[in-house]
């Protein structure tokens, strides 16, 4: 089985030098992080703290989210300003599972109900919380709910041929409406506090270093799989049709392609990837609240992709890493500057780097640099 799979994997990376390098680098970083966390003592300069492991895991989840946005924005030209909604739905689904795992270890010690429900004086578990005791069911919901939202929203919007800035505004309204709904306490999802105080996942404590490492590795594998799926789609004839739709939608229609179907397909795939990213984010960060539904967060995702370089897949990943790394640094070092810096970055990259960081990398001839270094 493995022997059969390897060629497909290699084939997808064959003409994708940048992707190959990027994932080799990420793999090396993951291996090093895991190794250094386990082997070196906390005093050693080579030690990688569990906090860093968690941050790394979060970046990987965000990278998957950025990748999914690049599918719709970079390849179909749909500027979704509500992509965070799919992420948050996946995150909430996983959060609900983690809430159920708390059991009677909450403040109120109620084995049946999460703390916030006890606080709200609920007598029994709302129906939509059923099934979240099972990880299997949760994973199913993580993919299902975002894809249903994407399908219904996409079906209505694409069929009515809403495009461009109008579509962007509607996506923003969608995530805003969800944010307002999730803020309400009577939604039964924790209101503005969201879901938090998680204890363990599949019986393993979330405070445990080992669990954190496994989550990091899972995040990496999810990103890799998401990348390969996206690469396969983009390399296929379907991918070329998507680019055709992005560039000249009318022409594509007159060639006999049902543009709506294509948009819907990509939109749903992207929503599922975003949902998975959300599900990976929650156990590592330890909280999900309605703020993730805010249009601001969705716009941030767009900025990651724009800065990394859209329409390349790997650019989105690079962008997510660079911006979030900078964000982590600046928000602790110079908290008041960060939002301005982010805005400035976006403006600069739009004006001077239409292809983002990837655009700069493409101009630099790496093969020659490497050869030169070897000589």
């Amino acid at each position, binding site marked *: 089985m493995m022997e059969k799979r390897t060629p497909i994997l290699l084939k997808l990376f064959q003409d994708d030098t940048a992707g190959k390098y990027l994932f080799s680098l990420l793999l090396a970083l993951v291996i090093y992080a895991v190794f250094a966390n386990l082997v070196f003592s906390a005093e050693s300069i080579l030690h990688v703290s569990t906090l860093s492991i968690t941050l790394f895991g979060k970046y990987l989840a965000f990278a998957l989210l950025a990748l999914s946005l690049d599918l719709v924005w970079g390849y179909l030209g749909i500027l979704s300003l509500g992509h965070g909604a799919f992420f948050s739905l996946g995150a909430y689904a996983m959060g609900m599972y983690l809430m159920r795992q708390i059991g009677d270890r909450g403040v109120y010690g109620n084995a049946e109900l999460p703390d916030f429900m006890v606080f709200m004086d609920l007598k029994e578990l709302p129906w939509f919380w059923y099934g979240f005791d099972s990880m299997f069911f949760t994973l199913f919901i993580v993919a299902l709910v975002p894809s249903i939202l994407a399908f219904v929203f996409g079906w209505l919007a694409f069929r009515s041929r809403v495009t461009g800035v109008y579509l962007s505004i509607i996506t923003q309204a969608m995530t805003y409406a969800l944010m307002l709904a999730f803020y309400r306490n009577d939604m039964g999802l924790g209101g503005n506090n969201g879901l938090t105080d998680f204890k363990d996942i599949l019986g393993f404590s979330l405070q445990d270093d080992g669990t954190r490492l496994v989550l990091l590795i899972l995040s990496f594998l999810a990103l890799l799989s998401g990348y390969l799926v996206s690469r396969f*789609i983009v390399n*296929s*004839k*379907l991918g*070329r*049709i998507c*680019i*055709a739709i992005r*560039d*000249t939608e*009318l*022409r*594509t*229609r*007159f*060639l*006999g*392609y*049902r*543009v709506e*179907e*294509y948009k819907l*397909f990509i939109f749903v795939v992207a929503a599922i990837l975003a949902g998975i990213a959300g599900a990976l984010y929650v156990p590592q960060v330890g909280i999900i609240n309605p703020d993730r539904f805010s249009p601001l967060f969705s716009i941030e995702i767009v900025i990651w992709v724009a800065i990394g370089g859209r329409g390349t897949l790997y650019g989105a990943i690079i962008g997510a890493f660079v911006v979030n790394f900078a964000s982590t640094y600046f928000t602790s070092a110079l908290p008041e500057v960060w939002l301005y810096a982010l805005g400035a970055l976006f403006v600069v990259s739009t004006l001077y780097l239409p292809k983002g960081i990837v655009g700069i990398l493409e101009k630099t001839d790496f093969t020659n640099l490497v050869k030169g270094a070897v000589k």
Partner: protein
Amino acid sequence: MIEGKTRIEENLDDIKKGERLLYLSGIDLSFDGFKALNSLSLTIDYGELRCIIGANGAGKSTMMDVITGKTQPDSGSVIFGKETSLLEMDEPSIANLGIGRKFQKPTVFEGHSVFENLELSMKAEKGFLTTLFAKLNGEEKDRIAKTMELIGLSENMNMPAGILSHGQKQWLEIGMLIMQSPKLLLVDEPVAGMTPGEVEKTGEILTELAHDHSVVVVEHDMEFIRSIAKKVTVLHEGSVLAEGSMQSIQENEDVRKVYLGE
């Protein structure tokens, strides 16, 4: 649900040369009171090269919009073949039925290579799941190669369409139409902005095509029309003013009055 709309009840492959392929009758269409089409009736035979002329606003492009499903008329009927009604069908259904359209402004996929442009235009299953796993076979590659030869772009096959010259883009778009294997090609102003050499070559391509397709050309360039046309239709204020050979059109009193401004 979507397939239902197509309702191909007749076999359009049975149509022979010289038989009626497209029949417009009594088409009315107004935009905010302006009558764009005024009980327009027109017949195109299979294997015919028809030129359509008319002043700006005579309804040429609107007529194309109606045929290709972009615009629905207020009344009238559009029959393709013997009995397939094109009204109520959407653009992809009509395109898949065998009507290809070339726009006034060349619209090719600029980011894709010449080869890819033709690949995407090829008559094939157009559902998204099919295209996700689609692979080109040898026969299909041959067809693309043949088309590239016809439109004279064999040497540019891997070039992004965006960097082709204006004339080459026009030919590529004609090539894209050919790949659709349509019965009817609607060609809007194919020689606008072309050099005399390019115009001549375009004429050759279109004449060649009319051997086994019907070709409808809308054009302003009278010189060009004179060089290719056998039958010309003159549109005026949304209906047919005159129809016949170039000779008879030029001698027609009404045409001279309204179109040639005499």
